[in-house]
């Protein structure tokens, strides 16, 4: 690997990190797991003046649930931690389904969920998951923390809403309003392949009805797609064949796929619909 020349800093505290980011602004790039940034450096697609390695910063690797049920995933929490988490396996079915589908075991042992979301690759899995869960990113900057809703965080392919001087401190999943179900389905040609199509379906049920729903799509547009219309038709009623079909159709319409070597436009839309159907079939819940 022969990247262009760059300076390297490894801050030891959040304050040091913020100072570095304040000083270097847009010329600095944060290195967490490095699974996206390092390939970009290798290919010289990214040539930052400064790489700020946050791996030595304490207090960023948390995976915790607040008493009110808010889930917090720190900037240094690795994919593998999420994959092996008993909490996620028990309470967060969409995240538990997605974690083992992210890239391959080598990437998962080093890469981070927050880093993957910041990379804003339309084929990244976690952005869809967090979007379907109605989550947000907590940005930290010179003026403290601020939440950025996942639906606002990705502003374009490989572009996020962080301002110069800010870094992504953690990803947050809000507390549930009902019983959580749902899943993440991904069509890939091989382990570690980017998704031909990925669909995150998240439901919360209460009193036999769907009280909250989120559907988000991976790999079928210039950015992660929030299929809000598809999710909305599910809310306020029990799941039925009719609403499932509507959601599948609306999600397929929300997709903006392009024909490429992974598949045709028609095929990708078809798989979106199929995965929404399958995801919702798994989302059925015995009346609580």
């Amino acid at each position, binding site marked *: 690997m*022969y*990247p*262009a*020349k760059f300076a390297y800093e490894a801050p030891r505290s959040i304050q040091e990190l913020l100072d570095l980011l304040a000083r270097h602004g847009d010329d600095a790039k944060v290195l967490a797991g490095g699974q996206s940034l390092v390939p970009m450096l290798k290919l*010289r697609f990214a040539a930052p003046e400064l790489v700020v390695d946050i791996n030595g910063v304490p207090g960023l690797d948390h995976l915790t649930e607040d008493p009110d049920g808010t889930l917090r995933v720190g900037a240094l929490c690795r994919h593998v931690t999420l994959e092996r988490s008993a909490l996620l396996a028990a309470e967060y079915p969409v995240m538990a389904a997605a974690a083992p589908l992210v890239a*391959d075991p080598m990437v998962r042992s080093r890469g981070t969920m927050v880093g993957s979301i910041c990379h804003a690759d339309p084929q990244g899995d976690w952005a869809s998951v967090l979007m379907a869960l109605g989550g947000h990113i907590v940005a930290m900057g010179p003026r403290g923390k601020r939440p950025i809703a996942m639906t606002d965080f990705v502003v374009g392919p490989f572009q996020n809403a962080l301002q110069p001087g800010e870094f992504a401190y953690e990803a947050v999943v809000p507390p549930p309003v009902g019983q959580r179900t749902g899943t993440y389905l991904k*069509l890939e*040609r*091989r*382990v*570690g*392949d*980017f998704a*031909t199509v990925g669909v995150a379906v998240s439901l919360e049920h209460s009193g036999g009805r769907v009280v909250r729903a989120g559907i988000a799509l991976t790999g079928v547009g210039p950015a992660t797609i929030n299929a809000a219309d598809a999710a909305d038709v599910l809310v306020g009623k029990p799941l039925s064949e009719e609403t499932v079909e509507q959601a599948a159709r609306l999600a397929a319409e929300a997709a903006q796929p*392009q*024909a*490429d*070597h*992974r*598949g*045709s436009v028609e*095929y990708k839309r*078809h*798989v979106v619909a*199929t995965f929404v159907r399958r995801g919702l079939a798994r989302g059925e819940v015995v009346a609580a």
Partner: protein
Amino acid sequence: MTALDEVKIGGLGASRLRVEDQRFVRGRGTYLDDIKLPGMLYMEIVRSPLAHARITRIDTSKAWQIPGVRLVLTGEMMAQRNLAWMPTLSYDTQAVLATDKVRFQGQEVVVVVADDPYIAKDGCDAVEIDYEPLPAIVNPEQSAAPGAPIIRDDKPGQTDNTCYRWEVGDREATERAFAEADVVSSLKLHYPRSHPSPIECCGAVADFDAGTGKLTVYMTTQAPHIVRAAVALIAELPEHQIRIVSPDIGGGFGNKVPVYPGYVHAILASILTGRPVKWIEDKTGNLISTGFGRDMYLDAQMALRRDGKILAVRMHADTDQGAFFADAQPSKFKVGLLHSAFACYDIGIGYITAQGHYTNKAPGGVAYRCSFRVTEAMFFQERMMQAAATDLGMDQAEFRRINLRRDVAFPARTPFGFLVDSGQYHKCLQVGLDAIGYDEFRREQAAAREKGRLLGIGISTMTEPLGAGNSREYDILGIKMFDSAELRVHLTGKAILRTGARTQGQGHETTWAQIVAHELGIPADDVVVEEGDTDTAPYGMGTYASRSTPVAGAAVSMAARKVRAKARKIAAHLLEVSEEDVEWELGRFYVRGAPERGASIQECAMAAYSNMPDGMEPGLEATAYYDPPNLTWPFACYIVTVEVDPETGVWDVLRVVAVDDCGVRINPMIVEGQIMGGLTEAYAMASMQFQTYDADGNMIGANYMDYLLPTAWETPGFELHEVVTPCPHHPIGAKGVGECAAVGGPAAFVNAVIDAIGDAGVRNIDMPLLPDRVWTALQTRQSVSGAPPVGRS
């Protein structure tokens, strides 16, 4: 005295652990990038971003200004030295650095040599090149279209994009047979471009010593002597002053047979700078510019009698050669051994035509675990067999039974001139069918179909010609395709063996010693094997096309037998009897009628240096050059079962049964490893792996995000079975095997998916059988083409 146990001394049939792994698993191999010479410089290549464009300006001044940049080479500088173009092994020419036009994306345009690889990259980034884009041609149809731009306008007399035309067989007899046929079956398909993609990319460390005039090149080559010959004949350097060393190789698969421009750049850069120059290709450089496999279009017909007998076959192949005809292909046949198709079937008549096309794509065509287009031949054959059986309404296994050659039919001449040596085809097929439970699966399949589940079974049976030469029909640059071995037995009975082959994962260091153990009774552990250094190895043609065991392995046997013949004279001397009274058993000579009076091979070795008979030349060593009388013809039967998800087109492999008859197995463990590796690659090609191009000639498949290698996770399990028909003309009865599964395997996977779909309208889905293509076939009930261009332009 009890005779030696051959397996215990590591002879034939011993699954001896690989000697070379002792260093590889410890990370102690010496690969090209491990070679560091004092004062060494580093080289990087600026490649064309465009597929077809005229070069209007090259400005290297900014690169020259970077501290640490030592040399910037352009095509113009090469041209001044008459090195801008080089001859290829297929008697064409190839640009070493582009002068006039670039003809494929990734073509070499400028070379930068610097103190370290970072600076060399910076130098590449500082080179300014202006291009005037030209239309890109990415398939044979575009290439042959009227008015298509002439890609090779550098070649005098070239008025179109035809690379070659070739034919074989009896056209008139074939037409007569088709006129008399009850049924004519036809099939069109594309075998996509795939890439050998060894984990270690290509590279060289060139070291020209002005003091001695000697050029040493460490190089990732499967055929070091061919490179030495090429350098001597092309660059007109004296052959004794050229040393090519092929260190440990991190995979070859045919990718490391051709002579690439990068080697030439590194050699010239070392001569010009007076310092060693290292070039290590990066992964994209390897995938985008070096020898690929296939990219062939087939249009075939089969003339059939109603009872299932094949009367004749007719095929036309269009090959996409890329911008230069740069196959490293030693046969006298322009399209390699494509005409080995149908060799396992009793077919008397056939006719094949082929046309090569220049396109704006990387050059090559015969690499990737393939004996020179045998892979396409066997794929086409077995896809055609399935289509024909379907057209006849006949069971796939029964149709093969009707047409496979009988055991008594050998040797058998094919309609295209090959002489097939031996085999037990019907037995192999039956072993495979029994193993998979063919009849039971057919019942399961019918029951599953009632419930909307799509199960399928695919069969592929084939024999392929492995082990080029013979010298009549195979040569490289006029050098005949023999191979060689040199065996030197030391005083204490230990030995060193050198051959003209070059191992790159095949395990020669292990298996060659086993042949010596078999011939001489010297334990395999007492034999060290060396290959790859042209200053020490006997002249040989290298390792590819499954030729090592058929040719170099035979030479090992013959050299060992020469040693044994001399040792017999020594034994007679030691035992004080005449040579005619000396008998041999493994590892020992003894007196006829008095078996307790004997001399071991080790005692003979000691005597060869210390107590030789009067008048005998001291020493115990021999060299053998082996010119094989024929190719070897292994047979294989691969059977695959799959289930297709009708909603998504995703298919899962249920079982893979492989029955291989590669004659006598030297090391069964290594053979099984070869077969499993080949089946993995077959699965990859069938399911996920291809290099394609968009309409602008951008390669899709120039990195591991797009070009997929299967992992252990998705690779199916393999059930291996064995039948042994010794090769009648090989000294130890062995046949080639390295490529069988990669050659015969793909059709079994594809046939299984087509069988699962079970709709007569879907005659073909081009590989790879991506879920998208399978779903489209299910929706449209028609064949699905995978020919480029793909996606948006």
